[in-house]
């Protein structure tokens, strides 16, 4: 063996012993670093998916919002028919009902009483 190979061999042995004798705290931190590196790959893959999906989701939400706003701002045609709430109010008032029952009388009154002609 050449002297430089012998030297390298001794150095390797010493450095191996030194690395094997690494304190537990440093070894634990290395383990965490390794798991984190492997975990970050998953996280990043997830975030890459998100990076694609998020703009699509935002665009969809914006389109839906625009449609809702456009519909709500459009002037609605005047409704001729009375709504069900209005009918209920009329039915609930007993005075009004009597008025409608005497509607013919009021019509005759409005045309003018015959004795006034």
């Amino acid at each position, binding site marked *: 063996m050449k002297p*430089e190979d012998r*030297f*390298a061999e*001794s*150095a*390797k042995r*010493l*450095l*191996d*012993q*030194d*690395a*094997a*004798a*690494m*304190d537990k705290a*440093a*070894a634990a*931190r*290395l*383990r965490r*670093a*390794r*798991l*984190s*590196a*492997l975990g*970050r*790959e998953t996280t*990043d*893959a997830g975030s890459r998916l998100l990076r694609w999906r998020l703009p699509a989701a935002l665009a969809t939400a914006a389109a839906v919002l625009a449609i809702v706003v456009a519909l709500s701002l459009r002037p609605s045609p005047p409704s001729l028919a009375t709504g069900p709430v209005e009918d209920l109010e009329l039915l609930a008032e007993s005075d009004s009902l009597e008025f409608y029952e005497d509607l013919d009388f009021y019509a005759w009154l409005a045309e003018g009483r015959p004795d006034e002609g």
Partner: protein
Amino acid sequence: MIDAPRRQQLDRFLASVEKRALRMAQIGTGQTEEALDIVQEAMFRLVQRYGSHPPEQWRPLYYGILQNLLRDWHRRRRVRAKLFAWWPRNTMRQETSDGDPIEQVADCETAGPLAQTAAGEAARALKAALGRLPARQQQTFLLRAWEGLSVAETATAMGCSQGTVKTQYSRAIETLKTLLGEHWP
């Protein structure tokens, strides 16, 4: 996306190199925290960029990433040192002082049993000497002698020619012998 079996392979591979990688980064930077960050970033980049490559390619690729990160770290440190050159020396001492490289070499096992043995002393001396080597020589020696990469793999990892690897390696051994002197058993 990497499947579960490939993830397990990657986990085993990273577990097999992480301690040596940390020691290399500690020798390269002289700082444990920085070294841990660099090792983790190298792990992350390997998984991200080369996780789907054949496993036999991972070793040179991983050390290539590690060496690049170490080079970037030194580059940033030099820039920072230039930017803050006007700063009062005592306040920037911890950040930028070159100081004695022997003192800067990280030493995680000072209180451990290894430090109390002759082999432990030799390892300390060796790490200190490695810390004083020029970066290229240091990287070449660690990759060739310790990690056992071939000349071609080392050249790939370092992004240089095989001739450069041979030259740097030979110079590294000469420098180390000189630096270690009587400390070498």
